[in-house]
C-alpha cells in the first residue's frame, strides 16, 4: 500500500516536470546572426526598390526563370519589384531558420537537453501558429499588391508568435515580441518607410536581443 503511494508520487513528479518545463536551449548567437541577415536583406531590398522603381515606370519586362515562377505565384500584382522583394524575404527567412536550428541543436547538445521532446515541440507549435497565419496573410498582401502593409504585418505577427512562445522557453523573448508588435503597429502609420522599420525590428532588435541572451545564458 505504501509503495502504491510512492509510485503515484513519482508519476506526479514526472508529469509536473513535463508540463512545466521550458525549452532552454535557444541560442543567442543565432539571434545575432538572424539580425545581421535581416540587415543585409533590408539593404538588398532598399537597393531593389530604388533601382527597379525606374524599371517599372518604364514598363515591366517579362521575367524569366525563378522570377518568372514568383511572378506566376503573385498573379496580377507581380512586377519585378514585388518579385525581388518576395524572393529576398523568403531567402532571409530560410537562412534565419537554418541558422537558428543549427545553433540551437549545438547548444542543446552542449547542455544535454534533448532537442526534440515535449518542451521543444510545444514551443514550436505555439511559435508556428501565429507565424503561419501571418505568413499566409502576408502572401495575401502580396496578392493584392498592398506592399505598404507587408513590413508592419510581418513585424506584428512575428511579435505575436514570440509572445505566444515565451511561455515555453526563455521568458526574455517576450520583450522582443512586444517590441516588434509595437514597432509593427507604429509602422502602419508610416507607409513607405516599412523597410526602415523592418530593418529595425528584424535586424537591430534581433542583434540586441541575441547579444543579451548570449551574455546572459550562453557564455560559459
Amino acid at each position, binding site marked *: 500500500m505504501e*509503495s502504491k503511494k*510512492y*509510485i503515484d*508520487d*513519482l508519476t*506526479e*513528479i514526472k508529469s*509536473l*516536470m513535463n*508540463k*512545466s*518545463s*521550458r525549452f532552454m536551449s535557444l541560442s543567442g548567437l543565432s539571434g545575432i546572426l538572424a539580425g545581421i541577415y535581416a540587415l543585409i536583406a533590408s539593404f538588398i531590398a532598399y537597393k531593389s526598390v530604388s533601382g527597379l522603381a525606374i524599371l517599372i515606370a518604364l514598363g515591366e519586362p517579362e521575367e524569366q526563370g525563378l522570377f518568372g515562377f514568383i511572378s506566376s505565384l503573385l498573379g496580377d500584382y507581380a512586377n519585378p519589384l514585388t518579385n525581388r522583394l518576395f524572393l529576398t524575404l523568403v531567402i532571409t527567412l530560410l537562412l534565419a531558420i537554418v541558422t537558428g536550428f543549427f545553433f540551437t541543436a549545438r547548444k542543446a547538445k552542449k547542455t544535454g537537453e534533448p532537442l526534440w521532446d515535449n518542451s521543444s515541440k510545444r514551443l514550436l507549435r505555439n511559435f508556428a501558429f501565429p507565424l503561419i497565419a501571418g505568413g499566409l496573410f502576408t502572401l495575401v498582401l502580396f496578392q493584392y499588391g498592398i506592399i505598404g502593409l507587408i513590413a508592419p504585418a510581418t513585424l506584428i505577427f512575428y511579435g505575436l508568435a514570440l509572445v505566444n512562445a515565451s511561455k515555453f522557453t526563455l521568458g526574455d523573448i517576450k520583450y522582443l515580441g512586444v517590441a516588434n508588435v509595437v514597432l509593427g503597429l507604429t509602422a502602419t502609420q508610416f507607409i513607405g518607410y516599412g523597410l526602415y522599420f523592418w530593418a529595425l525590428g528584424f535586424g537591430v532588435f534581433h542583434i540586441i536581443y541575441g547579444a543579451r541572451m548570449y551574455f546572459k545564458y550562453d557564455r560559459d
Partner: protein
Amino acid sequence: MSIINNINKAFDHRIRLGIMSVLMVNESADFKTLKELLGATDGNLASHTKALEKENYIVVQKSFIGRKPNTSYSATTSGRKAFKKHIEAIEKLLGK
C-alpha cells in the same frame, strides 16, 4: 544512513512534492502558475510554500509587475539536493 532516513518528511505531501517538481525544472515559478499547475487553493498553496521556505528549500522573491505584486519562488541548492535524495530514496524503496 538508512533508506527510511532519506525519505524526507518535508516532501511527504502532494502539493509540496508538486512545488518542488516544478521548481526543479524551472528557474522560478510565480504563485499563479504554481496554483494552476497543482490545482491548489490560495491558502493551501501559501501554507505549503511557507513550510518549504522554513526548511530553506525554496526562496521567495517579491516584486511588482506594474502595480500588481508578484510573488515567485525558486528552489535553493539545498532544496534541490534534498529533493534529489528524496526521489532516489523512493526509487530504492520501490526497487526492492
